[in-house]
């Protein structure tokens, strides 16, 4: 498919590349990464550009790879009056995202107790297939949680107000209406609060080495203030609840495309006008699932604090475990951007893409207002993660969005064929990373070599300027679902 470089790090596929495209598509990448981009990504992002009411170019971030409907790493903005909303642009795991916690502890303090700590975390944070959460919910409580997200956790004593202000949109998206959620979604979600799940979801103990801090001032503002500091990273989402909401509405939207006469190139792009009963019902149900995911990561954070208190025999104040940030990377949000010279209200779809608001933007906690939003990027279990900061350029060019991870290059099946889970575990332990996994076979699917080189992907977004490097976080202990 035809593409041309329009500036350093950005390639454009013109509207003439495929019949029905309403806007061009743009690939954010680097000279080396663009060569390995698969054809599926180009097909999928140009399919997105064909959807009605798309307000500007359909974008794909440097970690982009083949998904269902949208590519993973896909970002698109649709007019709230003329455009659509599509579950295929959000993902089955609604508000899959990251939570990063800082601590006062250092590597020397944690290393001797790491096995004990991991065992405790593995006991407090249920992981794997068929696990049950530790917070029993009545129907009424679950509905309240769907509406109020982190605010519900604060009222239940599971979160602090400080946690709440360090979450994207304070962990409470609206409008959220439990009346738009099916009984099936309710049934799947009600017993899973505080569980990690499986697949690529994890809880990681990480260290911030001095040489891996690229912007010491911003790092300090984000709470990284001592050498060899220990941080805790959580990657998970809305569990069965979000998956059921997506499954339910995929069926609703399959009928809606016929009702509204919308032409789609892929059944996973089933959608409805945002301003239609079907579109609004999904948006309200999606927000319920997103609030559930924020609460899920919060309950996990609550249990992480418990585990640290138990193992180190210190108080919360002494441990200083606080939320640096919590951000979604599978979500649709109503936001305003200047597109074609005029301000437009759009529903931004981020599918495997993270919000990246720059300094001075609304919805930033006052403590970060002048440095920009923390952007949390999860790498593979072996390569580590990154803490970035959002930029004004992202708000100008990419509807306030950036990448979300390293991006897969090998399928789970291929990864599993290349290494056994127990061998990978030994290899990681030799490299100083302890692992507790609910499934050894599942572990092999997440081997580092199954992903793109995260350093290269981060370098690309930093150079393009849609987020900037603050620090790299190296894993020392991993709990995998």
């Amino acid at each position, binding site marked *: 498919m035809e593409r041309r470089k329009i500036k350093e790090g950005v390639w454009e596929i013109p509207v003439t590349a495929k019949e029905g495209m309403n806007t061009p598509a743009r690939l954010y990448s680097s000279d080396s990464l663009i060569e390995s981009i698969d054809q599926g990504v180009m097909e999928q992002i140009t399919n997105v550009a064909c959807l009605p009411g798309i307000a500007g170019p359909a974008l794909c971030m440097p970690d982009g790879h083949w998904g*269902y*409907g949208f590519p993973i790493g896909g970002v698109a903005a649709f007019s709230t009056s003329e455009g659509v909303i599509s579950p295929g642009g959000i993902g089955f795991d609604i508000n899959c995202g990251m939570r990063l916690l800082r601590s006062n502890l250092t590597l020397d303090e944690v290393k001797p107790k790491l096995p004990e700590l991991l065992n405790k975390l593995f006991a407090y944070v249920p992981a794997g*297939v068929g696990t049950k959460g530790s917070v029993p919910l009545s129907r009424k409580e679950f509905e309240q949680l769907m509406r109020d997200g982190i605010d519900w956790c604060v009222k239940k004593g599971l979160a602090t107000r400080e946690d709440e202000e360090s979450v994207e949109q304070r962990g409470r998206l609206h409008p959220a209406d439990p009346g738009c959620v099916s009984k099936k979604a309710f049934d799947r979600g009600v017993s899973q609060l505080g569980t990690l*799940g*499986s*697949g690529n979801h994890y809880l990681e103990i990480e260290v911030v080495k001095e040489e891996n801090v690229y912007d010491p001032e911003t790092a300090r503002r984000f709470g990284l203030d001592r050498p060899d500091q220990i941080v805790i990273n959580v990657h998970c989402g809305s569990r069965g609840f979000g998956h059921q909401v997506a*499954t339910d509405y995929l*069926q609703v939207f*399959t009928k809606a495309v016929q009702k509204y006469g919308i032409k789609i190139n892929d059944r996973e792009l089933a959608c409805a006008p945002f301003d239609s009963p079907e579109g609004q019902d999904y948006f309200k149900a999606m927000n319920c699932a997103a609030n559930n995911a924020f609460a899920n990561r919060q309950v996990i954070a609550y249990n992480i604090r418990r585990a640290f208190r138990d193992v180190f025999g210190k108080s919360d104040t002494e441990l200083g475990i606080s939320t640096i940030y919590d951000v979604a990377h599978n979500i649709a949000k109503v936001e305003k951007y200047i597109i074609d010279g005029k301000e437009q209200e759009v529903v931004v779809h981020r599918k495997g893409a993270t919000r990246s608001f720059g300094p001075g933007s609304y919805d930033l906690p006052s403590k970060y207002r002048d440095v920009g939003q923390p952007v949390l990027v999860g790498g593979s279990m072996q390569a580590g993660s990154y803490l970035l900061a959002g930029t004004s350029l992202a708000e100008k060019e990419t509807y306030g969005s950036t990448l979300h991870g390293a991006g897969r290059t090998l399928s789970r099946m291929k990864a599993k064929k290349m290494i056994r889970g127990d061998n990978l575990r030994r290899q990681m332990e030799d490299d100083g990373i302890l692992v507790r996994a609910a499934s050894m076979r*599942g572990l092999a699917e997440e081997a580092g070599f199954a992903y793109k080189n995260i350093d290269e992907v981060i370098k690309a977004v930093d150079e393009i300027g849609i987020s900037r490097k603050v620090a790299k976080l190296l894993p020392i202990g991993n709990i995998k679902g």
Partner: protein
Amino acid sequence: MFGSCAAALFSVITDLESIEKSVERRVDLRAEELDALLYDWLAELVYLKDVHRELYCEFRIELQQHDGFHLVAAVGGELIDPLRHHTRTDVKAVTYHRLEIKKTDSGYEAFVVLDL
């Protein structure tokens, strides 16, 4: 084909041979198209697995075509036991991504992508 797809789904999660039959669930579904029925059938199994925390190994299915398609099934399996069921990964959703049902000389062939 519906039984084979169901068995394939649970084979992704664990070894089918490790699942015993001690509970039975009933499924009753209707759809206008065969592929939509296959999607609904597999999505229903994912739902039952999560809600009851069970794995299934036996699928007795009756399929009728009359004004669309009607599937009635008895699904046999048991509660997930982490000591006996060595799970590989979970199946979280069924997708329409490249979903295809083909008629072949020996029956039907289906291609389904699952979200893990």
